[in-house]
Structure formats: structure tokens, C-alpha cells
């Protein structure tokens, strides 16, 4: 049996696109036939749940019952990949509680594959966070995600500051999420469907929808770019499903 994989998507700041990245991850795994489940910590109302209602559960990571719900089922649950969308401000506490329950040690000893997607915001505070979380990151795969979806610029004005932070963590991999056309992004929001379904012109229940061809085109193009980033970091290898399979809807 494949090792359970836990992917935490988080940032200490709101509005940097955590949920967007989680959504692309879920789409990516579903396109690669990797069974996945997701937890949304945005309790009580989760954005991720709105887009992927079938596989998403809303949890409160600070409570023991919900921690059990997530981690005690890791071995028994059939989906091999668990994606956790950690609410703004909760990344460091979440990692701390993971350490407390011995999860990080399990990851270190290789029983569990553990990856963190750290979405960067445009402020120094968000870079400070990197330093903070770095302490927990032994044994984890650490991905720094530069999210350009909302046109952030990442301290390109000061390479020294930038490097000081970005090289703080050893073996961190940088990932870039390109910008998506604003209107296209809004339309997907309005439609409340996964990006994949939007591209395939389908509604929430797989019924035929009538999205703009232009916007679908932009989403398809953008999603292909995001996925090629995931391919680049060999995400499917990480979750143990081998080579990225040929996907429909891609060039």
C-alpha cells in the first residue's frame, strides 16, 4: 500500500490564494487519477468545500476531535492523498499541533509523506513566517509558492531581503503560480465549480453549462501552466503514483 501523503496548504495571511492553490492541487490529482480527500479549516463556512463538496470536509484543526478525524484515518482511509487547506493565521499553530501529536516525527522517519505548500503574501510579515515555520520543516517537503494570481510582486526591489528569506530553508522548492485573467477567475468563482469542470463547460452536477469560450480558454491555458509547475516539482512522484499521466484537455 502506498504511503499516506499529507499536503498542507497554508499562509499566515489571508487573501494570498491558499484556496486557489488547493483547488489546483485537487484538480491536478483528480486529472492524474490520484484519489484525494481534502480538509478545509475555514470553519464553519469553507470556500474549498464550495468548490469540491464531494471530497472536502470542514474541520477545526485546533480541536482534538477534528485532529483525530484527519490523522487517525490516514492509514485506513482509501484516498492516499490528503490536502489540508489551513486558514489564514493558523499555519504555525497547525504545524505546532502536528509536532505535538508526533506527526512530524512520523514524517521524519518516513512513515508518512508530508509536504507543505507555503503561499507567500507580499509583505515582510509573510516572509517572517517562513523563518517561523522553518523550525518545523525537518522531514517535510517544503514548497514556497509565489502566487501571481493577484499580481503580487515579491520583493524584486530588494534582492538581498528576498534572498535572505528564500534561502532560509534548506531544500525549499520555489513554485510559481501564474496570473489568471481576472474575469475568468471571477466567473469560476461565480460558477462555484472546480477549474477542471469549468474548462470542460460543466456545472456542479456535471450538467452542461454555458461558460464563455474565451474565459474557458484562459482557464485552460492557466491551469496547464500551473500543472506544468506541479509536473516540474514531480508532485506525482511525491504521492507515489509514478509518472504524470497524459491528461485530457492539455496540449
Amino acid at each position, binding site marked *: 500500500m502506498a504511503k499516506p501523503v499529507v499536503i498542507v496548504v497554508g499562509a499566515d495571511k489571508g487573501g494570498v490564494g491558499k484556496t486557489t492553490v488547493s483547488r489546483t492541487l485537487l484538480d491536478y490529482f483528480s486529472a492524474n487519477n490520484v484519489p484525494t480527500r481534502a480538509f478545509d479549516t475555514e470553519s464553519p463556512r469553507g470556500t474549498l468545500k464550495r468548490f469540491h463538496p464531494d471530497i472536502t470536509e470542514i474541520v477545526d484543526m485546533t480541536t482534538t476531535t477534528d485532529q483525530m478525524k484527519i490523522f487517525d484515518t490516514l492509514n485506513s482511509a482509501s484516498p492516499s492523498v490528503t490536502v489540508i487547506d489551513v486558514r489564514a493565521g493558523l499555519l504555525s499553530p497547525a504545524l505546532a499541533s502536528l509536532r505535538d501529536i508526533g506527526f512530524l516525527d512520523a514524517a521524519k522517519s518516513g512513515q508518512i509523506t508530508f509536504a507543505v505548500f507555503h503561499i507567500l503574501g507580499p509583505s515582510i510579515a509573510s516572509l517572517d513566517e517562513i523563518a517561523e515555520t522553518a523550525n518545523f520543516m525537518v522531514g517535510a517537503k517544503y514548497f514556497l509558492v509565489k502566487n501571481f494570481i493577484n499580481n503580487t510582486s515579491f520583493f524584486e526591489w530588494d534582492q538581498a531581503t528576498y534572498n535572505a528569506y528564500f534561502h532560509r530553508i534548506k531544500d525549499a522548492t520555489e513554485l510559481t503560480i501564474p496570473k489568471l*485573467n*481576472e*474575469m*475568468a477567475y471571477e466567473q469560476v468563482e461565480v460558477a462555484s465549480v472546480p477549474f477542471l469542470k469549468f474548462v470542460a463547460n460543466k456545472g456542479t452536477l456535471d450538467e452542461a453549462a454555458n461558460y*464563455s*469560450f*474565451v*474565459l*474557458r*480558454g*484562459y482557464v*485552460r*491555458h492557466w491551469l496547464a501552466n500551473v500543472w506544468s509547475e506541479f509536473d516540474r516539482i514531480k508532485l506525482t512522484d511525491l504521492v507515489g503514483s509514478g509518472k504524470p499521466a497524459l491528461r485530457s484537455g492539455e496540449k
Partner: protein
Amino acid sequence: MLITPVYIICSPRPLVGKTLIARQLSEFLLLKNGDVTAFDINLKEPSLLEFLPDITETAEVDDTFGKMALMDRVIINDGIAKVIDLGFHAFDEFFKMSEEIGFMKEAARRGVAPVILFVADADRVSARGFATLREQIPKSALVVVDNEYVVRGELPEAMARSRILRIAALPSFLKTYVDRLTFSFTGFLRNEGNSSSELHQWVRRNYLSFRELELSLILQRSF
């Protein structure tokens, strides 16, 4: 299967005869099918809208709204031929967008047949524009328009290897005549008694070229 042709008349250069060709092609399609929709993406040039106000709509590709308004119409396989008169300033943006949103592929899937009519010129901007098109447009859908009035001589080599549609040069007094806003090619064919006049033959020859173009489109599809 029903095929809807979409003719995109383009050049990265102004004043090479795009609108003239768009006018004639639209009139030809109107005569042949009784129906055509033309889109005018020209802000700075003599405009198709002024010549054929009844069948022409304006469109733009500067923002996403404009792109949606245009492309969501053009991608529909409704059997009504479309003509797009693409102004030189919109050339880059249009093809960048069409590449990004996968226009050619989606069109093929839906039975819409885009035909890119690239109006040739001998300068470098044209050469570069043409190279871009060669990269993203299948050879069968890319036609070089050799407007004798503009090219005056041999086509650049890269373009000469493509499919070519020739438009002969008119003497300038006839050119002034067809450039009048009230001039109609079909109307001229109908009303001009002397079928051996130069303009009469010129219009007929061009209509014949358009017909051949359309025919080859259908033949290509049936394979």
C-alpha cells in the same frame, strides 16, 4: 456536417487592403448564402462598418469583455459565415489571445473553420507577423493574400510557399471608384451592362477566387 467558415482578414500593417478584401468577401458571401456576419475591429483605418453597415458589427479585443463578445459569437457553428476585418493594431493581441484560449483547436472540434487571410507586404513587420501565424495556424487554414496593388512584384519567399489568393491591381481611377462608400461589388455586377469592362472582370475574378477558397475548405473537411 455543417461547417461555418470564419474568415479573418489580417495584417500587422495598415493600408494593405484588408478592408477592401473584407468588403468584397462579405458581399460575395451575402450574395451566395444570403447571410453573413462581419466584424469590424478597426479603430484607425477606413472601416468596414461604414461600407456595409447592415451586416457589420464593431468588436474589440482590447479587454476581456470585448474578446468575449467577439469570440463567443465566432465559435458558434450556426452555419452563418463570419468575416473579421482585423485592424493592424489588433493583430498581436488577437492572435496572442487565440493561441492562449486554444481557438483553432476548439473551432475544429465544433465544426467551425477559421481561414486566416494574411494580406502580405514586403516589410519586416509583415514578415514577423507572418512567422507568428505560421507557428500557430495549420498550413491549410492560412492563406496569403497577394494584393498586387501593395506587393508590386514577388512575394517574400516565406509567404510564397503558402496558399495564395491573388488580387490584381486596379488602375487608380477605378480604385477611387470602388473606394466610394456607396459602391457595392454585387450591385456593380448586376447593373453594369458591359461585362467585358475591366472592373467587371476584376470583381468576377475575385468572386471566383473566393468561391474556390470556400470549395477547398469543404473538400479539406470531407477527408
